[in-house]
């Protein structure tokens, strides 16, 4: 059995998890196996049932608010073992990475992160993974019977159907309180940078935090999340968790707008999995234009308001 781990955020299934479901369903089909999903958290059952759109017929739902990776891993490992899972597939996220590592040890599996394709099962079991921060790929072979895979976002295209999954609830007491979360600060209502379909990012070219409304307005018009370059968060113009790149968040949206960002290799390392890159910069020689799909040579202060106005006709 192929088990897919479905992540919930704010009561809904995260986009990367839809890709995980699709991958699990396709892999199961290829191997003549069955696919099952597990979701742990707080969500509406009718919403969860929509995972059926992505080829999963049964979802096991654990209704709990545990937020410690170890406890979640215990649940996943127990369900994997009960259902005789050969492969467990996770979406890439801070939380799921930690759960995946723990599950791999618990069920005695090999583990591969940043998988970008459905595994090749023609001759053994091999997977393609992204390495060197998106600058290359490696094909790796797994010989072990049990496997844990972590899927990189936006790597699999989904083809939703109208099928609905049956949701089975599952209960188990797990309480190992070895650490204490004393405080949680989360920006509510904002679109998660790592989950966004569109990201609008600003760099030092924006000149100061007082100009960020230009970035935010375009983002709002497009339903996008906002990001920034490292110097921008270093100077506290924006919070640290918005900084994109090699040492920041890695994003993989459909469209990434880089406004007033020069295109240093460390920044590009965090965006090179995006489908389309758009660069807006006053300097026609800015390195970002070499990586971008579309470019505008122009002043952000002039271009952004115009784009924001125009965006309203496209969303």
């Amino acid at each position, binding site marked *: 059995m192929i088990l897919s781990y479905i992540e919930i955020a704010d009561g809904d299934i995260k986009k990367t998890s839809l890709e995980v479901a699709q991958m699990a369903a396709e892999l199961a089909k290829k191997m003549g196996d069955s696919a099952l999903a597990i979701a742990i958290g707080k969500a509406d059952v009718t919403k969860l049932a929509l995972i059926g759109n992505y080829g999963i017929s049964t979802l096991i739902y654990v209704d709990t608010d545990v937020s410690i990776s170890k406890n979640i891993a215990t649940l996943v490992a127990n369900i994997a073992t009960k259902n005789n899972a050969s492969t467990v597939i996770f979406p890439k996220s801070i939380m799921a990475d930690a759960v995946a590592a723990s599950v791999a040890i618990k069920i005695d599996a090999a*583990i591969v992160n940043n998988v970008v394709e459905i595994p090749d099962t023609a001759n053994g079991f091999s997977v393609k993974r992204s390495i*060197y921060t998106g600058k290359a790929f490696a094909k790796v072979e797994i010989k072990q019977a049990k496997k844990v895979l972590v899927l990189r976002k936006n790597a699999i295209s989904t083809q939703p159907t109208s099928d609905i999954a049956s949701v089975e609830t599952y209960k188990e007491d797990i309480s190992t309180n070895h650490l204490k979360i004393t405080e949680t600060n989360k920006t509510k209502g904002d679109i998660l940078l790592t989950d966004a379909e569109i990201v609008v990012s600003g760099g030092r070219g924006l000149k100061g935090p007082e100009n960020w409304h230009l970035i935010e307005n375009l983002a709002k018009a497009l339903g996008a999340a906002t990001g920034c370059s490292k110097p921008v968060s270093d100077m506290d113009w924006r919070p640290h968790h918005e900084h994109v790149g090699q040492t920041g968040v890695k994003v993989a949206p459909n469209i990434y707008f880089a406004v007033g960002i020069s295109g240093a290799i460390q920044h590009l390392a965090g965006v090179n999995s995006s489908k*389309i890159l758009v660069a807006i910069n006053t300097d026609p020689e800015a390195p970002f234009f070499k990586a971008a799909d579309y*470019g505008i040579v122009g002043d952000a202060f002039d271009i952004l308001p115009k*784009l924001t106005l*125009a965006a309203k006709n496209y969303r």
Partner: protein
Amino acid sequence: MKILVCITHVPDTTSKITFTDNNTKFNTQNVQFIIGPYDEYALARAVELRDAQAGSSITVLHVGTAESENTIRKALAIGADDAIRIDAEPLDAMFVATQISAIAKQNKYDLILMGRESIDFNGNMVHGLVAEMLQIPVISPIMKLDITGNIATMHKEIEGGKEVIECQMPLVAGCQEPIAEWKIPNMRGIMSAKSKPYQVIAPVETQNVALTLSYDLPVAKSGCKMIDASTPEKLFELLKNEAKVL
């Protein structure tokens, strides 16, 4: 307090990545190797914690071949007290984690610090695997770490924000900025690095390793389409009708 810092030996962030031998080997030519940037944050914080508490020590640990020698020496120059190298090709995260936990089981560290992720494999896995193998907590990625007595207080990044976590040691943590400022080795550090204890140890056996068969590079972009600054709205038309992403 006994601190273990696990470091990687990775191509500098500006390196162009290429492969040789029919795409089966990483091409090290013209590549500058560095301590993994996140690992360096871990090391920098370890130095501060060690200096703040008398009787503390830092061991740096690396799983890799003799090619990593200079990287390990640099860690000693920055301030680690001694170094261990497990003499083996770091095959995958599970392999590396098995080696690290074998050492940790022998030496009982209070704090095992790593980077949030390596910048070659980007697995974000080794800390989680080690913690599970040792049956101790793991917190990653953390941006702040303070120790009071036996308790570590940390700021952990979560999607869209942060958590404050308290946890009893021993524990494993994956570090990222701004946990500490990088330390530039001074002359005394560089000199003393040569005489600090440095052990080379054979690896323990492991299973469950995923072996790399071959590498390849992403397809190059076909070029950037420029849109005139006087008609920026044309961008959306192209995104919708040409790229089909709107």
